[in-house]
């Protein structure tokens, strides 16, 4: 005790105190905000990881490097989590068809089992968002509110994906794709991993319940179709203007020609 009080005027005492303070607040924050903590992976065996590594080396390592450490052509995958692999490979974006502004969707190259094995391997390299469980994706519950999901969608997503989720342009050839036909799982994974140019919407940002609401909203507007007739691509006034000029005026001109051809 005496030694401690004697050293309290030591030049490094202030720094030591600061470090202790930082450690304490950081530690408390880390414990308190477990929102961003990676979810526990469901039943992954060592053989899955082993198979996944083989697949990874054969199909992904060219760009992402051995041990997924990353190269000039592809980022490191350590810590991206299983959800990222499941989204990128499960939607056919990876393996990448070609370098470009962003990865394009193409037919899925692997079986569901292979995707899970690669996901398990990448997840084993470092903690990251896990593949969402079934109950996180279930939008049939009583407490799920698609209207609130719509509000969240308009505030957080519509500026890129369009209010009707029809997709939209970003800079220099990048784009936000249409969300029609995207599965609940992939929507959820896109939100937690932020693929391509999309920002990450972590659980601290949009809670899992809110994510459920958004998915419920998207599924409702997808299933209800267009109440007013053919939606012309849900692209807003541009396709409407194009339609009235081409189809509307076209038919009317045909009638004017017909009407004036009779009397002269």
């Amino acid at each position, binding site marked *: 005790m005496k030694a401690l009080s004697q050293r309290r005027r030591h030049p490094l005492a202030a720094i030591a105190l600061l470090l202790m303070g930082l450690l304490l607040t950081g530690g408390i924050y880390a414990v308190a905000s477990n929102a961003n903590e990676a979810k526990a992976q469901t039943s992954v065996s060592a053989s899955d990881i082993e198979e996944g590594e083989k697949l990874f080396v054969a199909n992904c390592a060219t760009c992402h490097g051995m041990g997924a450490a990353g190269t000039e052509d592809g980022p490191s995958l350590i810590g991206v989590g299983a959800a990222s692999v499941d989204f990128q490979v499960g939607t056919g974006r990876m393996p990448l068809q070609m370098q470009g502004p962003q990865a394009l969707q193409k037919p899925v190259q692997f079986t569901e089992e292979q995707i899970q094995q690669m996901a398990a391997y990448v997840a084993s390299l470092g903690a990251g968002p896990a593949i969402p469980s079934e109950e996180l994706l279930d939008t049939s519950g009583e407490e799920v509110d698609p209207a609130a999901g719509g509000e969240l969608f308009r505030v957080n997503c519509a500026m890129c994906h369009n209010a009707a989720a029809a997709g939209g342009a970003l800079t220099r050839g990048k784009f936000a794709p249409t969300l029609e036909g995207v599965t609940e799982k992939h929507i959820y994974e896109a939100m937690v991993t932020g693929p391509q140019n999309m920002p990450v919407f972590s659980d601290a940002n949009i809670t899992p319940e809110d994510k459920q609401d958004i998915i419920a909203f998207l599924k409702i507007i997808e299933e209800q179709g267009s109440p*007013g007739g053919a939606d012309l691509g849900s692209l807003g006034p541009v396709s409407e203007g194009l339609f009235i000029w081409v189809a509307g*005026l076209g038919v009317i001109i045909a009638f004017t020609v017909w*009407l004036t051809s009779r*009397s002269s």
Partner: protein
Amino acid sequence: MSSSAAGHQYQPKTSVGKITNFVDTRVGGSAIVKEFGRKIFPDHWTFMFGEVALYSFVILLLSGTFLTFFFDPSMAETHYDGSYVPLRGIEMSMAYASSLDISFDIRGGLFMRQVHHWSALLFVAAVSVHMLRVFFTGAFRRPRELNWVIGGVLLILAMAAGFTGYSLPDDLLSGNGLRIIDGVVKSIPVVGTYISFFLFGGEFPGTVIIPRLYVLHILLIPAMILLLIAIHLFLVVVHKHTQFPGPGRTNDNVVGYPVGPVYAAKAGGFFFIVFGIIAAISAAFTINPIWNYGPYDPSPVSAGTQPDWYIGWVDGALRLMPGVLGNFPFEWNIPLPWGTNTLSLNVLFPALVPAGIVFTLLFAWPWIEAWVTKDRREKHLLDRPRNAPTRTGIGVAGVVFYCVMWAAASSDLIATHFMVSLNDVTYWLRALVILGPVIGFVVARRIALALQRKDREIVLHGRETGRIVRLPHGEFIEVHEPVDEYKRYKLVSFDSPEALTAQPDVNGHVSKGEKRRALASRFFFEDRVAPVTPAELEQAHSHGHHGEVASEHDKASISSH
């Protein structure tokens, strides 16, 4: 009325006849029908776009009246509890909630809303095409200059009616549109902010803009449109309709059919055709699905936010305008005695300058052309566009200028649908908005001149039949057939003004203005293809025996081989 004046009273025998006679002797209907029913209108399909515009306006009045029964133009806040699930419980304005009710909870409401909106798009489109027809055929010339100006005002009013209507549902899309208007208003130097606060009753969006726009949309603007349409049509009757040149058609007559019974029946039927087309479109294709956009909230902006097509060119100009050019910024902060004023040329310039150029030229055009040609005679015969190459070229330049800006309003959709970079689309359109009109002018003028040459060729040497004949001495010729008189009349009878050199005034002095006019005249008429004269025609036919035009004699000799 003449019958009563003659003192001899006509006594109808049936009760229906008595009623009609009673009305007629008070109103004078038969005289109007007699006069107007014999009014002659020429027939051509391009003359019917004004009618399309008129009919879509009638449909707009009918469907709009229905919508006013159910629309509540209030920005009071409410929570939606209608039948559209994805919006239930959401806070929104009464205007948006009642628009949703019209769409989902009022029988026939969605259909009527779509009829109203589709016919609005068709209305402005028909007005535009009608105006293009009038421009390219020269129907704006004396005595119709003022009617052309009225038409231009009607176009502006149509756009205003469309925009105020677009803003009424108070959904996200219309609110974003209003926000852009607010930005444009605020960019006006010094007074912009005051005008914006006056318009919105405080800071945007406020709580008064929807009711104000509603009054403009259902009262003031339609009343002005109606009034101007009445004057427009009255002037058409006064001036008589223009006609394309043809045998027997002169500047002093109108060749066509009378209103009654042919045109009355046709026009009445055509109204139902237009109505039917709009109804079919409205039943099968959705327009402005306001439920997709959600209630207006100043924070979110959806991708794919565009105005309706007729405002698109202004939106496109805003999209094309760079904020800085190299190191030159278009936003200036000007220190003034009372504080710093911001001059946002990057907003003000694209919002006002292109529209200013287009409408100034549009309104001034009849006088510009009269000044250049010094031709102030009445023109009731139309030009075929090819026979006025410079006017056609300038018109095409205007159309290209407009269309490039119009395309720029959908630059994001061009980028996603053609898989190109949004930035590149913007760069290309920036270049095209300057170069496009020039290219359009040169190409269109060249094509017009080439078509005139082709017309000349056809008149002089006949139509190519595609029949190749080998003559006895081994030569191959293609048989040309002379065109018939009616066709020839169309090809040779047109005005072809020549460049008019500067004329001295009474004092023998050539003024500077006159020199400028001579320059403009040279620009207009230096390159010209003269119509075939009778002498040229005679000459061409006389050496037709040498194979250029197969005369009857030639034909006989060819077929005998």
